[in-house]
């Protein structure tokens, strides 16, 4: 059975058609995909749920003061705006927090607190891809998956075991306590069936909001490529440990995305790049700081496919090779830095990096030229004195 995109446009008629189609596909989906959603403005009903919300509210209040929270108002407004576009009725029920953590993840707590990790923002290539993840997380909220999971696990063990499940999966994560606590009762605790359901809801929300549904399988495709090609596989395996098998998930997502319109819809590439411009250097630096060169190379190569004129990404590529410092890496770094400079929008630090590589290969004149270019662009940089001292036969300041 095939459906044209028009059938899956905006509005109630489309929702009805989607529900019919989902029923036709079978599986464990409800007859109407949104009939079991929480109501807008939902508050916890019984003591179980009230207790869970109380824990999350405590975690949320701590998260608000976390030093790992990205407080850039434009970035936060942009991300929350996407959530509102995906689920307008629930706009005031969901609150997003961007956490400076260089891994791919987002999570949703039962009280509507959503975490978005900066590693996710780095990897998304456009707004539609980010919307795919945010829609998925919204799906968890709309179906009260955390509560369902909590009751399921608690009936078999204890609350502390439930908490332990989350922490074990997170590898005692990368964040502060508040964030850890929120994670525990969110993404790592969901069952694979719940993840599949959230995938489905996310796709429908995307299509209804006018985003290209094909962005959803793309994100997973990219992550899978990173996972398979990376030496840092364990980082992503944390995610795959509790999510459906990537290949299976990818196939299902592709099929459903095609049914919902495929690549027809908005991608929001320019908006994505513009709205996150203020934090992109930080996203790149945090990835590079992990010194997982193979993985970073896959990420930046992937991003460059759609942004070959991005000086920051070429600079990042050069940094991988400079920091790895293996055979042939000096040439690779200089080549990438040259591309960064040609783009016309490279960060000033590219000159400092060129200087360091030229010094390494003994090209002192070129190193000096690069130093001068850096000093001109960053006259107040605190490292100028030491950098100048690295240049042979240069008189001191």
């Amino acid at each position, binding site marked *: 059975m095939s459906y044209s995109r028009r059938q899956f446009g905006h509005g109630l008629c489309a929702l009805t058609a989607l529900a019919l189609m989902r029923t036709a596909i079978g599986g464990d989906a409800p007859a109407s995909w949104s009939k079991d959603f929480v109501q807008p403005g939902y508050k916890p009903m019984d003591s179980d749920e009230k207790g869970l919300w109380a824990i999350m509210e405590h975690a949320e209040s701590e998260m608000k003061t*976390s*030093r*790992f929270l990205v407080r850039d108002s434009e970035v936060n407004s942009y991300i929350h705006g996407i959530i509102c576009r995906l689920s307008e009725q629930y706009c005031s029920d969901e609150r997003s927090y961007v956490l*400076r*953590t*260089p891994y791919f993840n987002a999570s949703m707590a039962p009280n509507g607190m959503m975490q978005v990790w*900066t590693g996710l923002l780095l990897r998304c290539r456009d707004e539609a891809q980010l919307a795919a993840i945010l829609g998925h997380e919204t799906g968890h909220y709309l179906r009260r998956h955390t509560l369902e999971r909590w009751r399921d696990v608690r009936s078999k063990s204890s609350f*502390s075991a439930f*908490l*332990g499940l989350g*922490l074990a999966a997170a*590898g*005692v*994560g*990368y*964040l*502060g*306590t508040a964030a*850890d*606590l929120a994670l*525990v009762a969110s993404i790592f605790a969901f069952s694979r069936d719940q993840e599949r359901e959230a995938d489905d809801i996310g796709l429908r929300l995307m299509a209804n909001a006018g985003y290209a549904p094909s962005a959803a399988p793309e994100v997973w495709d990219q992550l899978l490529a990173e996972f398979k090609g990376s*030496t*840092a596989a*364990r*980082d992503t*395996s*944390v995610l795959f440990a509790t999510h459906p098998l990537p290949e299976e998930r990818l196939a299902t997502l592709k099929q459903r995305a095609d049914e919902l319109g495929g690549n027809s819809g908005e991608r929001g590439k320019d908006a994505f790049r513009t709205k996150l411009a203020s934090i992109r250097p930080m996203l790149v630096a*945090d990835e590079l*700081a*992990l*010194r*997982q060169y193979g993985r970073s190379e896959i990420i930046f190569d992937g991003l460059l496919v759609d942004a070959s004129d991005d000086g920051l990404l070429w600079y990042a590529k050069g940094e991988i090779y400079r*920091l790895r*410092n293996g055979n042939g890496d000096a040439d690779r770094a200089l080549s990438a830095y040259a591309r960064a400079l040609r783009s016309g929008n490279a960060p000033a630090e590219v000159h400092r990096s060129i200087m*360091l590589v030229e*010094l*390494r290969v003994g090209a002192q004149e070129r190193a000096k030229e690069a130093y001068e270019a850096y000093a001109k662009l960053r006259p107040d940089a*605190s*490292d100028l*004195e*030491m*950098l100048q*001292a*690295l240049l042979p036969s240069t008189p001191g300041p």
Partner: protein
Amino acid sequence: MIIRILLLLSLTILAGCGGYSLVKPEQQDVDGALSVQPGMEWNKVSTVNVEGKIQIWTLDGPVLNRPIFFEGVGDGEALFKPRSGPFGSAKQDEAPPVFRSNMNPFEVQELIQATVARNFQTTIVECRNLKSAQFVGGPGFRFDTKFTARDEVERKGVFVGTVRGGKLYGLWFFGAGSHYFDRYLPEFNRLIGSAKIAETAASAK
């Protein structure tokens, strides 16, 4: 409760502590690599969970403040890393950043930054004000550090070091907030001023 237990466990791992021994204010040999003259009593920390050519001291506990001595880290060696074992985190199984004997001070600063980010599992690390400085009787370098670990506490610090014979010698002192850092900075500067490369280490260069 389990969160608190795991956080404390995590801090203990980061502290790398497995016991303490008293360091008296007299000439001290640091694992045959360096020697220093402390001006007050310190505690040497037994580093059961951290490996590397380092020695850790503390006054108020390693979570609050500690100097770390780098005792001639060689080419291809990590500055320090968690010892493999039951407390090893999954992410630490990946190859750590390593020292290269041809690194200049700027690159050593980058290495410290990456090592801190990795071992303290944080993105909030800042190294700045890299300057020339005297260390172990010769030219070296010095820079300020600042990082926030998983406990959300900001730690200020100073690293002073030099590369001799292709090996990195250094001293890094950091403390929680201003109190545990500023209070002991004069003593740290005294340690820096008194530091020498031990004769045995110098002859092995």
